[in-house]
């Protein structure tokens, strides 16, 4: 099971500069654990101490914000594309 995860510039220090890495997991939570195993420390930048997604981090599965699809429990399947982005202003 391979899921492509797009990494924002700000977190590429954890992926040796890679813009995208492969990971696996049946839920977003499992995927982040898997990512942290290959790229130690990245989980701590995405998840807060109380176990939720960092306020200024947005994660999208196939372009849909996971906060509206079950957050860290969002189910993943082979071929899904996960995008991580910092929150920025519009307007």
């Amino acid at each position, binding site marked *: 099971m391979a899921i492509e995860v797009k990494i924002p510039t*700000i977190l590429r220090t954890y992926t040796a500069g890679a813009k995208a890495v492969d990971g696996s997991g049946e839920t977003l939570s499992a995927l982040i654990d898997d990512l942290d195993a290959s790229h130690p420390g990245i989980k701590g930048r995405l998840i807060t101490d109380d176990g939720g997604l*960092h306020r200024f981090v*947005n994660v999208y599965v196939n372009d849909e914000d996971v906060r*509206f699809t079950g957050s860290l429990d969002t189910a993943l399947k082979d071929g899904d594309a996960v*995008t991580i*982005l910092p929150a*920025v*202003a*519009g*307007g």
Partner: protein
Amino acid sequence: MTRYDSLTDATGDTPLVGLPRLSPRWEGTNPVRLWAKLEDRNPTGSIKDRAALAMVRAAEADGRLTPGCTILEPTSGNTGISLAMVAKLHGYGLVCVMPENTSIERRQLLEMFGARIISSPAAGGSNQAVATAKQLAEQYPDWVMLYQYGNPANARAHYEGTGPEILHDLPTITHFVAGLGTTGTLMGAGRYLREKVPDVSIVAAEPRYGELVYGLRNIDEGFVPELYDDSVLTSRFSVTSYDALRRTRDLIEHEGIFAGISTGAILHAALSIADRVAARDERADVAFVVCDGGWKYLSTGAYAGSLQQAAEQLEGQLWA
């Protein structure tokens, strides 16, 4: 009634137009129909006229704005242009803090309206404009920052205007789709529609920019507008420049609507939702916002060459 005493009085009451060619099913027992709210029909050509006018009126009512005052606002363009028009008619000065990677048309329009532009760095996008404006507000305490990201009058303009107008024209509404920038449109119109139609879906489309815009130094420099309340939303989509451009062109080609790029992003989200409903063989009436026309984006290359070329041109620009 199409006669008004002044330009600002002509804000709102925009048309809601069906898209029979782009809708998954326009007719039949379970139609899935798309409806475009043409906000480019506002006085300066964008939905931001509603928020700008409401914020100025609120600040006048509570005494913060008095004749001769200078207004300060961080903006990537449309809010600035709307404020510049209102400021001119109401006798205020305007200072806009705008990221340097915004289209030349926006700058020219602002200058023509007499606004002063202070540029903020391209890296970090509007986050930097907000930060710069907050610094300026401390430096110049007599300037009045209306602050669209946290000003309740922004959302209220849509609670009292956009939302009721849409429900009046489309009582069978099932979905409302709009862009997520300051979040004012979605929070205001979304709350109104949810109150009146409890099972309505409120869908956000946010632009996914090139990397430059996300070039923050650390995650804690991120920004979520104070107006934002995610309990109002049902779902939220991140739309790439490519998909936004593709839909912008679809709108012209199939429905004759020449819209700005953020509208393409909104239509993309609207179609994603509409296609899901159509696949379940249910009915839907999806209203979405056309934020502005395409005129201010011609210089970005959005409408020239292949989609791929246009998307590359947009890399690094703030297009919403």
